[in-house]
């Protein structure tokens, strides 16, 4: 909160004075002295404002630090397992570890092969593993497993760095990642002991819901965007109707429709459990928004691109998938990642349809009579966790944006 205030104040001051701060970036020292002298203590009004802000910031910082330090965080660490994986059966927990090992190795390999933002991802995951491994409240077993994950990141980096030819296998392994881990988590539909979705919860449920929705809405949204620009009236008007209908409804309503009307229409015998229904609702909802983002990208392309592709003798399919879409998607990466971050956070709405995602689990725990009213610690923990991963997504998006625009120039 403290740094937030300072940044905001800087911004305000910049705007007030109409100066461009970049013009004074000759060296770091000059910049700092400029910020302090001209930016914060320029005239008595600014001096007053700065002092007041500093006092307020220190006060808030003091309060927060005092809360964090003096509080007994037992409500969080006693329930770490519930918060992370919900009621997932302990004897099947190796499946989740497998998923985490898989992800760690892949992150390491990706970092080694492509460098760039892979480093930030690897370090973030590594740090989260490390923190959870060293805090005294995790079991020895968990710490060992987490240490294993960190090792795998390192191993992945080592091999990725050495062996260029791993690129194709790594891409294939990434493609297989979601179906494999998800299949393992559910039990491959009965091949091994199934773990029904009612036992999923906490961060696990949040991640599963978000990743399925993101991966599912992507092709659906692209098809809708292409369909909306189609010359076939039936396709075009269907896509317009779908997009506008979904965008005209609040997400909660779409969730309620998925949760209540689907079983009412189809009868209780459909056997689609409520987690799957929520996934379907999120996917359909996100697809409409993604379609509009992609359409923006499509419209930004000059008509010359189409003509050039035609002149090269590419057919319509090739034009779309090799020329148009790559450029259109690149143009809308920030919007897409923004949408994905929104989806990740919006999954917390499943609490109202009786699912216990990350936030829902925190709320559940705060209603345990032993810990009644201890919601502040839980909410802070949840907020920090969400922030880490949302910020990571935003960072990777910014990196991709820079990287892709450079590769064109």
């Amino acid at each position, binding site marked *: 909160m403290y740094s937030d205030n300072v940044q905001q104040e800087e911004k305000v001051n910049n705007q007030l004075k109409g100066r461009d701060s970049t013009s004074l970036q000759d060296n770091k020292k000059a910049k700092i002295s400029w910020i302090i002298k001209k930016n914060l203590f320029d005239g008595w009004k600014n001096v007053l404002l700065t002092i007041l802000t500093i006092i307020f910031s220190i006060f808030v910082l003091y309060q927060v630090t005092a809360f964090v330090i003096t509080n007994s965080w037992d409500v969080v660490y006693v329930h770490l397992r519930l918060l992370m994986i919900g009621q997932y059966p302990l004897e099947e927990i190796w499946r989740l570890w497998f998923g985490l090992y898989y992800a760690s190795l892949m992150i390491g390999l990706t970092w080694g092969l492509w460098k760039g933002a892979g480093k930030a991802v690897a370090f973030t995951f590594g740090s989260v593993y490390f923190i959870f491994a060293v805090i005294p409240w995790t079991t020895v077993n968990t710490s060992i497993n987490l240490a294993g994950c960190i090792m795998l990141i390192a191993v992945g980096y080592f091999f990725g760095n050495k062996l260029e030819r791993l690129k194709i296998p790594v891409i294939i392994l990434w493609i297989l990642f979601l179906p494999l881990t998800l*299949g393992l988590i559910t039990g491959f539909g009965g091949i091994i002991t199934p773990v029904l979705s009612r036992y999923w919860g906490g961060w696990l449920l949040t991640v599963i819901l978000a990743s399925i929705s993101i991966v599912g809405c992507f092709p659906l949204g692209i098809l809708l965007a292409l369909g909306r620009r189609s010359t076939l009236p039936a396709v075009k008007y269907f896509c317009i109707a779908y997009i506008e209908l979904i965008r005209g409804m609040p997400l909660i309503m779409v969730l309620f429709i998925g949760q209540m009307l689907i079983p009412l229409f189809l009868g209780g015998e459909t056997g689609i459990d409520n987690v799957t229904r929520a996934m379907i609702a999120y996917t359909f909802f996100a697809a409409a928004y993604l379609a509009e983002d992609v359409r923006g990208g499509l419209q930004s392309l000059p008509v010359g691109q189409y003509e050039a592709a035609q002149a090269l003798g590419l057919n319509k399919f090739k034009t779309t998938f090799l020329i148009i879409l790559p450029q259109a998607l690149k143009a809308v990466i920030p919007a897409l990642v923004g949408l994905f971050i929104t989806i990740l956070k919006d999954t917390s709405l499943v609490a109202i349809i*009786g699912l216990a995602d990350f936030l829902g689990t925190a709320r559940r725990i705060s209603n345990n*009579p032993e810990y009644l009213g201890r919601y502040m610690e839980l909410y802070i923990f949840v907020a920090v966790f969400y922030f880490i991963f949302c910020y990571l997504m935003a960072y990777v998006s910014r990196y991709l944006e820079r990287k892709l625009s450079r590769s064109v120039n």
Partner: protein
Amino acid sequence: MSKYFKYLLGAAVAVTLSACASGDVEEGSTESSTSSGNTLNTVIDRGELNAGVNDQLPGFGYVDSDGEYTGFDVDFARAIAAAVLGDADAVNFRPLSAQERFTAVQTGEVDVLLRNTTYTTSRDSDVGMDFAPVTFYDGQGMMVPKSAGISTLEELEGMTIGVETGTTTELNLADQLGALGVEYNTQTFDDRDALLAAYEAGSIDAWTTDRSGLVSSFAVLENPDDHIILEETLSKEPLAPAVLHGDNQWKDAVTWIVYALIQAEEFGITQDNIDDFLDSDNPDIQRLLGVEGGLGSMLGLEDDFAYQAISQVGNYGEIYDRHLGPDTEFNLPRGMNALYQDGGLQYSMPFR
């Protein structure tokens, strides 16, 4: 880079397809329940009871630190499972929000709803529920700070009263205070924590919910002694298990399982001493425990259904004390929930 973009695009499509495939797999693995016909047989065939519960109501239905469902309502679900299936753990708990609970019963997603649901005319008729006997008599109450010096509802004139959204409390409040001609303001909150924070900060002058909820909030308030619950109640809130309307056999079964727990308390039969009662000479006890009379088979259950429920979960009083009694944070007096001979309303129909 564009070379890899091609792969990425292909990756996205392939992953989606496989995700859809694994979604299908998951559907297949989920047991489907038949909503039509005979719920009792469905439950027995399935070997598991689907019970709709609350997962965020302290004392009645919540998740403990090990991730297990516990609470007063939850124990009734376990008792039903013990009576019908012989195993108190054969329950699939389905946490339900207030909004979706009736739909879940209507579609057959849950066999029985044990989610602090008030027994009302419209729910019994229009909503399509059937209610088993009341397990908990509650009533809407009002909490005010002692310092406000309020003792009757009339004195709330001009005050701001906090209520939770999506419940009948707001309606009851309007009905009762409207009838008294009291002018007041309401402020609605999405959850209890936010409401209590506003109440403690003094931005609302009073707040109302069921008395059980008011009492349990004492555990959260900073200075519980500074607050009182008004004597007057704003409504009757009898909480009862609900099943789908029209399936009489299932309703009968649930009804008599609840009665069995109340009757057991009346006879003094507890989880620990139940085996001593098996050779009791009292014909009433013999019939209740299924030693003779064959009452269970008349209901379509095993004859020892009451024995199973009591021995695995306990009688009504034991369940009450375990979750709401003097040894808990709530220490909720039995009040209307005492047995009839102790001045309460809990009364079992005779087992014969």
